[in-house]
């Protein structure tokens, strides 16, 4: 089954069965009706955008920017080429929802992109798919072929005179391409290094043309918004946090996987849906929005509801909806060491503070973890993070710094213990048992 559990779902309805991803199945469950209605009734572009604004759909990729507002930035009556681009370069550690959307419901993304293209006057689109999920890329290409044959893509869509074609582009292993301007560079056949903004993609995007980039889940939500109406979609979530959202739950839970829940659902409910904590152990901490989001201690997390505002009040970010759950067997220094290595490895090298800073962050956390920490290392780490943040072209530098700051803020004692005693508060055997690797087959 595609999605392990859901409360009042939209995106994950009717996805059982091996052929749920095929066009025929999608049409049977109401697919392409939204696009058909828009084209047949010749809805005004502004009306489509207004509906999306009313839904208060916020970008599902991580930043949470209101989608309707983003669409309104496009110079839609400006003649010439315009593009819509889907960001399926899902590489934020902890996130694996777009993979399941593309695997089980790819036509919802195609329909959403076609509607977006109509609303913004774009004639061509690309879906940039993470290179590591190759089977998904191949499936999406097959879904595109189905849509072309059925007249949902190509010239003169359903006889309306509107033209839109869509293609798949694969990544090949670079986290930074999830940043929208790096992604555009990558489609242009270059290194994925982020661009200075402004100009924003809505005025200077792919090949220098007006372009709007949205996340996979954002596009997939569009047909549901058009069918239900923006207000009904909004009511499915909570004020300022429209609709339902997929959450990828990973780490120390009994049933890791994707869950679709209305925004505003308590974290405790989501944890319960994911089967609760493994081995009945205690929750220690949670990263609620992908690895770049600040870590939240158990007590605060248990009081949060899963929406942009509540998680932000809890001191973190809803981000991509990747919920990384850690129990009491987790060494927070080791966890941070691995994350810091990731950002060091994935910094594109363009901006000095990030290129040099991420290397320092990793080296210092690594030496603390290996028992070689120095008394002033925590101050050094704090100083490196403040020298990275806000001084780079894109958000990767901030993303590398926020875990360091939050891990040290909430778990300072553990770091201090490592530095003083040259070993971990959590015995190595306990950490090892926590992963469950050697007991999985017993």
């Amino acid at each position, binding site marked *: 089954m595609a999605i392990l559990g859901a409360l009042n779902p939209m995106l994950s309805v009717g996805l059982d069965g091996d052929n749920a991803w095929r066009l025929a199945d999608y049409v049977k469950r109401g697919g392409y009706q939204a696009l058909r209605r828009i084209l047949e009734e010749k809805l005004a572009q502004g009306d489509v955008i207004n509906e999306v604004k009313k839904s208060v759909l916020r970008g599902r990729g991580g930043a949470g920017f209101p989608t309707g507002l983003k669409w309104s930035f496009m110079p839609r009556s400006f003649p010439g080429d315009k593009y819509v681009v889907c960001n399926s370069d899902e590489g934020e550690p902890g996130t*694996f929802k777009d993979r399941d959307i593309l695997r089980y419901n790819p036509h919802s993304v195609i329909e959403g992109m076609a509607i977006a293209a109509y609303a913004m006057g774009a004639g061509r689109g690309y879906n940039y798919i993470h290179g590591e999920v190759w089977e998904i890329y191949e499936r999406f290409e097959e879904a595109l072929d189905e849509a072309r044959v059925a007249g949902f893509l190509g010239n003169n869509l359903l006889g309306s005179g509107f033209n839109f074609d869509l293609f798949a582009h694969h990544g090949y292993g670079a986290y930074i391409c999830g940043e929208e301007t790096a992604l555009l560079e990558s489609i242009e*056949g270059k290194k994925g290094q982020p661009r200075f903004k402004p100009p924003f993609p809505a005025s200077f995007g792919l090949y220098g043309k007006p372009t709007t980039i949205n996340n996979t889940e954002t596009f997939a939500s569009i047909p549901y918004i058009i069918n239900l109406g923006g207000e009904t979609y909004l009511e499915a979530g909570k004020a300022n946090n429209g609709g339902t959202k997929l959450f990828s739950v990973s780490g120390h839970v009994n049933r890791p996987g994707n869950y679709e829940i209305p925004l505003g659902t308590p974290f405790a409910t989501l944890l319960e849906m994911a089967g609760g904590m493994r081995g009945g152990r205690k929750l220690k901490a949670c990263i609620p929005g992908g690895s770049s989001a600040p870590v939240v201690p158990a007590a605060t997390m248990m009081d949060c509801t899963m929406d942009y505002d509540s998680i932000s009040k809890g001191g973190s970010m809803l981000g991509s909806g990747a919920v990384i759950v850690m129990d009491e067997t987790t060494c927070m220094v080791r966890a941070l060491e*691995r994350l810091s290595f990731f950002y060091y490895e994935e910094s594109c090298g363009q901006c000095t503070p990030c290129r040099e800073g991420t290397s320092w962050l990793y080296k210092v956390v690594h030496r603390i973890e290996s028992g070689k920490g120095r008394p002033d290392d925590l101050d050094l780490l704090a100083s490196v993070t403040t020298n990275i943040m806000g001084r780079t072209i894109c958000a990767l530098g901030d993303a590398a710094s926020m875990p360091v700051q939050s891990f040290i803020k909430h778990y300072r004692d553990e770091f201090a213990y490592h530095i003083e005693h040259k070993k971990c508060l959590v015995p190595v055997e306990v950490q090892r048992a926590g992963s469950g690797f050697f007991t999985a087959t017993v």
Partner: protein
Amino acid sequence: MLTSESLKRIDREIAKYPAEQKQSAVMAALAIAQEQQGWLSTEAIECVANYLGMAPIAAYEVATFYNMYDLKPVGKYKVSVCTNLPCMLTGGVDAGEYLKKKLGIGYNQTTSDGLITLKESECMGACGDAPVMIINNRRMCSWMNPEEIDKLLAELK
């Protein structure tokens, strides 16, 4: 040096982009060249660049930037193991150590019979299936506990 089959596949990729933007197909073309050759030689990169009408150095920049391209020969099977935090919590690091022991090699090394190259890898976007590994950039293997790893190794011949 690219076969006509590879060139045909590259042509299909070129067709996805506006006529004057052939360079957009470079990532796919390099991946196709790597599939054909098993790795990406400088010669193959130049060949792709010439075919797309771009400067060889620009294609080389792309090949060195994205980490799924192999600029040195690898074993018949490249096994990439994700050890990033969500995978680590549920055995990703242990899975890597288990593979190292079984194969008698470390990361970035190849077994003496040239069969398997082991790589440590970053997030593959499949954290719910941890531990995960990818074979030759194409086939993703999920829930790789010791038993599943043993089965996989028996299969990779």
